């Protein structure tokens, strides 16, 4: 299965942010989306998540059998700002989420098993989410998206709010689940990208560009990424 992007364009007012993206994201890989500030990473995610309409071009899922449009269930989007319903406890949020999505969730586990999976402590599970820390809210948000088991996981700067230990856990977790998903995550931090991703994709001047990762020399890759990001238009 892959996510195919074809000539995707989007502009705000006169500013062309996405000038025709073309790419194929494949299942089983983690893609690091690198781009400078304002390059359009969030716009790209918003398009895939259908929060905004694209001006032209399209994107679809393609597997052995068919080409099809993305359904709501196909995409999970974890924002960098944690957003959780603050008036519920962690357990209640999960219960509600599972209630709603029961038919779609494969091999359903118990709520506590999910908490275990995400390493959320027993004493925190019945507290109101409004009293959770930033990182814990992020964990909940990530967890809900993983339970839904969408084909495509969009993660916007996912690891920056975690402390080093949790960040390491999360990295491991992403590696564990990647075989069933297309995971695309945006980041500013090159270390995370080089460390975790199978592919690095650069969003620059409104186009997507794949960086060759076959080279084992990390330093070399790093230089090429910087070079690519610095490139101005029409050079």
């Amino acid at each position, binding site marked *: 299965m892959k996510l195919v992007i074809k000539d995707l364009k989007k502009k705000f*007012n006169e500013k062309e942010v996405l000038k025709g993206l073309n790419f194929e994201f494949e299942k089983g890989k983690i893609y690091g989306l690198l781009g400078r500030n304002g390059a359009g990473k969030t716009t790209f995610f918003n398009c895939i998540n259908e929060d905004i309409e694209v001006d032209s071009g399209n994107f679809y899922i393609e597997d052995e059998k068919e080409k099809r449009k993305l359904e709501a269930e196909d995409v999970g989007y974890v924002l960098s700002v944690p957003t959780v319903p603050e008036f519920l406890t962690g357990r209640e949020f999960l219960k509600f989420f599972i209630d709603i999505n029961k038919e779609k969730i494969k091999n359903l586990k118990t709520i506590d098993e999910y908490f275990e999976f995400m390493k959320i402590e027993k004493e925190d599970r019945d507290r109101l989410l409004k009293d959770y820390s930033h990182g814990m809210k992020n964990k909940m948000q990530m967890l809900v998206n993983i339970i*839904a088991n969408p084909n495509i996981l969009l993660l916007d700067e996912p690891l920056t709010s975690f402390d080093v230990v949790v960040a390491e856990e999360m990295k491991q977790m992403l590696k564990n689940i990647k075989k069933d998903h297309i995971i695309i995550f945006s980041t500013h931090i090159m270390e995370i990208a080089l460390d975790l991703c199978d592919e690095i994709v650069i969003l620059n001047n409104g186009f997507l560009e794949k960086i060759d990762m076959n080279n084992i020399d990390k330093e070399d890759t790093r230089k090429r990424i910087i070079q690519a990001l610095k490139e101005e238009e029409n050079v």
Partner: protein
Amino acid sequence: MFKSFILSYKLKNTYRVNSIIYSIKQLPLIGKRLPTSLYSSKGLKILGNIISTISEILNIFLGKVIYILIMIVSMISMYKGNNENNFIHMFLFLSLAGGLLNTYMFNPTKDKYYAMILMRMDARKYTLSNYYYSMIKVIIGFLPFTLIFGRYYGLSLITCILMPFFVMFIKTIYNSYILYDFNKKGKIKNENVPTKVIWILIAVFVILAYGLPALKITLTENIFYIIFAISFILGIFAFRYVNKFKKYKKAYKSLLTHDNVYAVQKQTSGEVLQTNTLKQIELEKGTTSNKKGFSYFHDLFVKRHKKILMKSAKRTTIITFLIFVTLIFVVEIDEKVSGRINELLMTTLPWFVFIMYIINRGTVVTQAMFMNCDHSMLTYRFYKTPKVIIALFKERLKTLIKINLLPALIISIGLPLLLYLTGGTDNYLNYLVLFISIIAMSIFFSIHYLVMYYLLQPYNVNIEMKSSTYSVVQWITYVVCYLFIQVKLPTLYFGIATATFCILYSLIALILVYKYAPKTFKLRV
């Protein structure tokens, strides 16, 4: 010093002009069509500059004339006695209070923050040049009106000319005191957060300003001259102190903290709104729900927001109940009033449009829904599926209607009852119409608010207002309801018309929500 004044004025002007352009861009329909390059368009900059200059001039004169008209002239008209003395008396004491309340120098405004903290302008030059400018504005602004009104009340020309200078000296004396105090204690007084002593002083001055004339005790022009002479001498020293003061930079660093500067603006910003709404969540031990899915979710929302949802509805219910009990009591003992109320009941049903509008909790409830729930939940894809949106909409509509029906029931039963007790009516249909139209209005407003929210939700994920259509619709709702107060129509016809309208509107609105909400109910981008 003149140079730094020009610089700071230009700075202030630039962002003033930009905010004028920004507000033009926020207008519905027109705004979106305007390009961002607007900010660099010369013609618009010139227009912005003209508007900004006009507003500066209005600011100089308009504020002063309104102040004198409302605070002094209108008050004088209420007193009998010597107008001439009343005028000078009130002006003097109000100026003393105003000096404490409005110093110019210690108001933590954004222009000061930008200029001295962000742009690192020389604090002393900036402060002094702008302070002198504002003092010139005080004198130029007041002078025409002290002359016009002072002469009108019969004060001498000299007095009228001295009055604005008195204001200037008072402000400067107080400012020099604040600086002196800072020098000693190292803390600056924030003008927007007056201490208790300041409040008491202000209260005393205001009481003296309005209280003494009521007792026929007032200052005379001669006493004013004496007080002016004192303020003049102290004022000269104060000006010298202010002028020589060295530590403006340090003083402003303690005053212009981020919180102080943004305090005024913060109260209305979404961020604060959200923190305040979040505070309303209550977790009582054992609040759970046996329901499932959205019903479970919504049920917990209602239970955890009992206070914000139910409290004021209950309060309104009790108050309306008490009002009706009192009215029933009154019409039983006073026949005259009884007759009049009977008459009113047959013609003033339109008033109740406004009353029902006022007591409806729609705005608060939808706001809580957004801030504490949808703001976060709308980032989840599953929450945005048409099925979930419509299911939750139904649950919410039921709750909102129920909340608002509580006081509405009292009114809808109270009105026909009152009509009956005050002598009744020939046409029995009137009882029914009163009852039904009030209920219809209540349901109408509940639906109206919720539908508007589902169709026009204006915020983005950072709780910034992205569309003004929602506010415009709310404002129109207010104006229309308010206009109904002016309308007088026979209850029977108006009631039938309203009930029909409410039912039709509600049906159309519900159809719209079912059709469009899955598309419109989202966070703005």
